[in-house]
């Protein structure tokens, strides 16, 4: 699947951007031309110059150095939050599709409860209890994003739980674990990857909003979001200033999203192939119940898509057949 994904141009560009960001995360502090914390009152809010390539902020600190040095914190926090969301969301989501109604019911109610928590207040609470640093804040953000992972994973897994090959594996006496591992996991991963990319880009931005409140990042430590936030306060004096941190955040988030799209496209063939799967016995059951309760039980899914002009919109089965023959 990885190979297939990398065949997409967008995936290649995304991977290049993300690799560059990763390099910055590792070597950013070393690459910074000046001390990111060094203040110089007389140089505040300067435009780009040979000394300060990207200008200075309201305390006269070098913006380029602050961005380079802040990469690591920003990337780590985003990864932390996503990882926490994955653990608390994707795993229960996968289990929920397989462990039967009771687990599913309870997991769903817990998810509903988490979704009612207000993000900022919860984050403030967490930092109050666990101490004001980025890790507790990101734990909180990740935890709050877990319902997204839960829902997305569960929905994706449910699509495959009823697939006939899962039933067929059950008839061989395969355990739930084996079925998830062999038949379901690889089909759900693209969906989870899309959610993870979205969640990571969201986390990058959330760091900045927390910085406004002085939560998580303790000044003067630099982050992308922090640089952006401080620049936004001085828009009158330096209207160009937010552009660079914003572009950095957008590039990274955009690369993550594009990669997620490419993953989805690369695996999309199977998704469409399988979504039609519905067990035949279920059709029989539906047919039988329809006789008793007309109108009550008609399942549009069995009838396929609707169409205004009956003649025109139908996937050309023969053409599909032709494609297969010539591919073989």
């Amino acid at each position, binding site marked *: 699947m990885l190979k297939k994904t990398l065949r997409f141009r967008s995936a290649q560009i995304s991977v290049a951007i993300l690799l560059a960001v990763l390099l910055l995360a590792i070597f950013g502090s070393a690459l910074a031309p000046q001390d990111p914390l060094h203040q110089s009152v007389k140089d505040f809010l300067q435009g780009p110059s040979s000394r300060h390539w990207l200008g200075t902020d309201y305390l006269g600190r070098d913006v380029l150095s602050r961005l380079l040095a802040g990469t690591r914190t920003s990337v780590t926090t985003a990864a932390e939050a996503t990882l926490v969301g994955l653990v608390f969301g994707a795993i229960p989501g996968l289990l929920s599709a397989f462990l039967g109604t009771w687990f599913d019911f309870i997991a769903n109610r817990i998810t509903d409860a988490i979704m009612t928590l207000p993000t900022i207040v919860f984050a403030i609470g967490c930092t109050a209890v666990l101490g004001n640093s980025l890790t507790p804040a990101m734990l909180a953000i990740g935890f709050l994003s877990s319902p997204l992972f839960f829902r997305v994973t569960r929905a994706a897994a449910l699509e495959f739980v009823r697939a006939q090959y899962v039933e067929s594996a059950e008839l061989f006496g395969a355990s739930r674990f084996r079925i998830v591992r062999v038949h379901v996991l690889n089909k759900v991963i693209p969906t989870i990857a899309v959610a993870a990319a979205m969640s990571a880009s969201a986390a990058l931005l959330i760091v900045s909003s927390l910085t406004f409140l002085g939560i998580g990042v303790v000044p003067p430590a630099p982050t992308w979001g922090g640089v952006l936030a401080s620049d936004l306060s001085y828009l009158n004096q330096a209207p160009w200033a937010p552009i660079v941190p914003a572009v950095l955040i957008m590039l990274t988030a955009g690369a993550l999203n594009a990669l997620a799209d490419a993953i989805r496209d690369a695996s999309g063939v199977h998704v469409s192939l399988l979504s039609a799967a519905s067990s035949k016995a279920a059709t029989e059951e539906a047919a039988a119940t329809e006789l008793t309760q007309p109108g009550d039980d008609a399942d*549009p899914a069995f*009838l396929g898509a*609707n169409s205004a002009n009956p*003649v025109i919109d*139908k996937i*050309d089965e023969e*053409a599909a057949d032709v*494609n297969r023959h010539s591919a073989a």
Partner: protein
Amino acid sequence: MSTDTQLREPETSDALRTGVAGQRSPGQDVLVIDDLTVTVHNGALEAVRGVSLAVRRGEVVGLVGESGSGKTLTCRAALGILAPGCHVAEGSVSFGGQDTAEFSNKAWRAVRGSRVGAVFQDPGSYLNPSVPVGRQLAEALRSVQGCSRKQAKQRALELLRLVGLRDAESVYRQIPGELSGGMLQRVMIAIAVSGDPELLVADEATTALDVTIQAEIIELILRLRDERGLGVLFVSHDLAVISELCDRVVVFYAGEIVEAGPTEEILLRPRHPYTQAMLRVASLGDYTRRTLDVIEGQPPSVGAQLPGCRFADRCGFATEQCRTTPVAISSGGGHEVRCLRSDELSLTRLAS
């Protein structure tokens, strides 16, 4: 009141109707496909090559062949609904003398509404699952013929009765999910003949149905042929259905017509070894225990370039010449065959 009179109502569309009816005389060609070549993969492969056939008024023509033989592509080309990537590369399709090559989308829509109707294998997927079937039929009538709401409903009920749905009033109000496959297929036929077309194209229209229902649909198609002079192009891989229904049979193999002629001729005196092999393996309502014959080998892949006969590799009678020389269709007494050795071979239905 005969069904024919029923269908000449309502008055508003009388002009259109007499115009169409005026063109109709028995035995006239309603569909002519001439030397049709269809390419797939944006022209990379020729999936249908040099197909010529005609459907006359009041005649059922069967296209038979295995999957991938090009019969469905041919009938889709005839309807102007080829999938993206598929194109008519050569040849022409014409309805009642009008070449479809110049048709705009609008002209196609008009033709599909009034001169040709189509029915496919899976009726459920062509209907909106949440709208009562009667209303969908009435809407089709209103958009194509411009009748009023009331007239449309009345005509829809008549059509539902015409296709053998006895309790038309209640069927009119039911959504597709409440109807059985056989009833849905009848509704689709009602929609297809709603514009009083000259031609009905049925692509595997009975394949998914139970045998008892299939028998009823076959009777319905035959009745429409007799009562309304409908020409029918019926596509199926089931030779037994074809033999029950069709006046003429066109046998497809690997994108070409290999044999065509009156049903009785084809079934009793097949002249192409492939037709004979198909008859040998088909289940023709024979319930005695028998050896199950197969046609050895696989058909050539779609669009394969072969110098000679495309069936040669699977043919028991093939000679070296068969493999190397292109074979043209030869016709004699309305029985066309594409085989170099058709004159020397004396094939019968049951011999192997």
